[in-house]
């Protein structure tokens, strides 16, 4: 395997840059690359043996076997390697959360229950250490979703804002951004009779009737918001600007009620999912289900309503004591077999790099390998309206490409080359730097 045909000065520059400026480790030198002699998985057709991928000006220029390589292209020899579209983690808090326990570094969920006008891209930190660490494992683009929770965060209010899609490389958010608003995030309220009361630090048991009342109130309030957004849209369209007050929140909901912006509804329990589907149907919203731990219980409903599912981590415990132990592992294949589009997501920050592991576990328990690849590279792009730009190795698409030394879902596989927006991007990151640094620590004096 040949190493980069790069001057060592450039690599030193990259190393220095990656230590100081995480997201900026892209080469400035060329914008034309040729990845050749690799096994190319376009996800738009069968794999191409001994294939070539040409990249120019940030996009994929050509893909095929035996295509001519332009003279100005920097050649990457991918002999014995595999070439794929970069992976896509469609629900994360990357850039919004650095150290979960340190609130100063967390911007995931604003105060209040209804914040539809807030947009994740506003606060994503391009210098987050999570960005180079995540892309080193082959994830080239993510969606940061406000209000969603990983294992170390509490979830937020009902509508926490709009999720933003961006590449995991760039100097500023303007450079990184793919689409500022890809979905409105709704945390579907859950009927929980057992809650942990932080005021007294004890478990409180509330009567179902009370909890149901609160739940109904929340759902009705959600409906009210949608109704008011419709009226606002109408007033805006038909009325004169003097006759209505500008309302940022309602304004933000207008594309939602017009069906132009999908809602990412985060729900796990079957009843919550059913109620959410019911709500979105009545309100005429385009729904994407997020997390969906019990989606398997309502798969007929999801299929009939054509609702795609962004699955939370495959590697999670079953929801109920009696649920079969492997249900979270088999769920992806179950949903796929039922004809429901699925994608995998980490719903986290630090665990975003586990995305291929989640897909791999699903394959272990029945999901076809090809489908698993699609579920981490392509399907989310389709769900969030980005399939024209991402998800396959086809000419005209964004050149987010990974070159690996094996099956990207397998645990030992390494990413050898990483392209984001058509730029060769270093896989160096804080973790590797610390490793190299401490590997070199001399033995302590005795």
């Amino acid at each position: 395997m040949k190493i980069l045909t790069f001057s060592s000065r450039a690599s030193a520059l990259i190393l220095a840059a990656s230590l100081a400026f995480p997201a900026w480790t892209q080469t400035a030198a060329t914008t034309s690359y040729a990845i050749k002699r690799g096994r190319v998985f376009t996800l738009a057709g069968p794999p191409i043996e001994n294939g070539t991928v040409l990249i120019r000006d940030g996009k994929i220029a050509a893909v095929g076997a035996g295509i001519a390589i332009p003279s100005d292209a920097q050649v990457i020899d991918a002999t014995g390697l595999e070439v794929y579209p970069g992976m896509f983690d469609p629900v994360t808090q990357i850039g919004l959360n650095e150290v979960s326990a340190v609130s100063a570094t967390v911007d995931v969920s604003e105060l209040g229950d209804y914040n539809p006008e807030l947009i994740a891209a506003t606060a994503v930190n391009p210098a987050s250490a999570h960005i180079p660490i995540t892309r080193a494992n082959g994830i080239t683009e993510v969606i940061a979703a406000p209000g969603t929770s990983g294992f170390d965060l509490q979830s937020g209010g009902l509508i926490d804002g709009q999720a933003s899609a961006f590449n995991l490389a760039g100097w500023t958010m303007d450079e990184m951004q793919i689409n500022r608003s890809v979905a409105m995030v709704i945390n579907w309220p859950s009927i929980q009779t057992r809650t942990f009361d932080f005021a007294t630090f004890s478990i409180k048991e509330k009567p179902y009737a009370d909890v149901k009342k609160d739940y109904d109130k929340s759902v009705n309030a959600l409906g009210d918001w949608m109704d008011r957004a419709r009226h606002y849209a109408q007033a805006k369209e038909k009325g004169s600007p003097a006759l209505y007050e500008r309302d940022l929140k309602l304004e933000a909901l207008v594309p939602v009620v017009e069906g132009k912006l999908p809602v990412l509804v985060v729900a796990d329990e079957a009843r919550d999912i059913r109620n959410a589907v019911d709500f979105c149907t009545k309100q005429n919203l385009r729904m994407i289900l997020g997390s969906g731990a019990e989606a398997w219980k309502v798969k007929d409903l999801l299929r009939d309503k054509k609702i795609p599912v962004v699955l939370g981590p495959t590697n999670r415990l079953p929801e109920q004591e009696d649920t079969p132990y492997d249900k979270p592992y088999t769920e992806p294949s179950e949903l796929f077999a039922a004809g429901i589009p699925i994608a995998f997501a980490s719903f986290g920050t630090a665990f975003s790099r586990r995305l291929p592991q989640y897909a791999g576990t699903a394959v272990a328990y029945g999901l076809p390998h090809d489908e698993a690849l699609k579920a981490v590279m392509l399907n989310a792009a389709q769900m969030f309206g980005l399939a024209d730009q991402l998800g396959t190795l086809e000419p005209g698409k964004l050149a987010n490409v990974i070159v690996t030394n094996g099956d990207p879902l397998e645990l030992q596989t390494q990413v050898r080359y990483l392209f984001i927006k058509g730029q060769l991007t270093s896989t160096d990151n804080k973790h590797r730097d610390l490793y190299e640094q401490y590997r070199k620590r001399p033995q302590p004096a005795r």
Partner: protein
Amino acid sequence: MNHRLPRRSVPMFAMVLCAAILIGWAYTARGEGGEPRYFAVKGARIVPVSGAVIENGTVVVAKGLIQAVGTNVAIPAEAWVIDGAGLTVYPGLIDAGTNIGLAQDDDGKKPARGPGASGPEDRPGTTPWRVAADELKTDDKRIESWRNAGFTTVLTVPEGGIFPGQATVIDLGGERAGDYVVRPRASVPVSFKPVGGFFGFPDSLMGTIAYVRQVLDDTAWYTQAEPIYQTNPTKTERVPYDRTEFVLNRALQSNEIVLLPANNTIQIMRGIRLADEWKVRAVLYGGQQGYEVAAALAASKIPVLVNLKWPERAKDGDPEAEQNLRELRFRDRAPGTPAALAKAGVKFGLYSGGLEGPKDIFKNLKRATDAGLTPDAALRAMTLDSADILGLGDRLGSIAPGKIANLVVADGDIFNEKTKVKHVFVDGRWFQIHEEAAPEKPGEKKPDDDDGARSRQAKGGEGVGR
């Protein structure tokens, strides 16, 4: 004594009875002695529990004790004779776990929110010196409703904390609170519920168990150290006073039973192990998963008080909440515990455990008998075995000469829901139980009872001897 006899033309028997009632009233009004101390229930079916059933027998009560029982017993002249034809006499029933007579805070026991304990030396949730007998309120309406159903004796248990106090065996009748008390310090109940809130000690089950262990160690130390000090005051450092050690030392030295909480299998097995480790005279309370570990219980020889409030699905719970198989099985099988324990030879009693009243107690008992507990075993558990477990088997729980005269006289099988309790004797005090009147339908006149006494719209009956 100035009695006016009613001048009515009624059957002789009724006249005598009315006279007796008025005489009794008069005595009650004066609130002094002079109540009848001698009774005989004649010609009844007698179920002694400690022996074979006696058809057509007689029980003689004298001065609070059972004087004689049998088919051919001498009835003292002074005795008030009750015709037992068609009636059955049982030992008074024992409810081995209540808080009858004790004041309850409206919101259950909430320890004062002060700074939490920082360690065992702060003695969190520990008030073993509280004795139920000292706090008894005899105006608790449950005394009457329990008694009307045939319960003559209950164990009443203080609540709140890990060592809430000492439980008392009371009989459900008397003038002053002290009359009720059969054994003031009958047992030391223990609870493993952490009292520390989130940040006080203990705030975990293991911390609570460790705390109890430490308290028992401290008590054992005091038991050893105090006598040494007292006999060598000039040679040994003075032993400090700790009220808990002092009180528990006395309790354990008098071999008081220690009630350990144990409802499911894990808790029962743990209870057996801890009882052995701590070398206390233990009785487990709860016991509802005894059906799984009856053999282990039998081998341990530890008695069990079984809570008759069988586990149920939460009434105000989420109707769509997933019920897990483990809990479903438990709820289904728990009523089979008494039968399983009986079969395995485990000594057990029964208690109401928070059931609203005797109606529910018998309803729940029926679930146990439906699940295989024989009526004999049920009766025994509710009488003699409970008495034994509480250390009072020599004087309670069966109809035998010398025992305290706690009796239930009913017109049929005591556990049959159609049976009516007619008379109850508590410590030889006679309570005549009258039916509750049914609400009157318009236009319908209620006929008088056969014996001529007026039906009363009362909660339970009033009887002689109050």
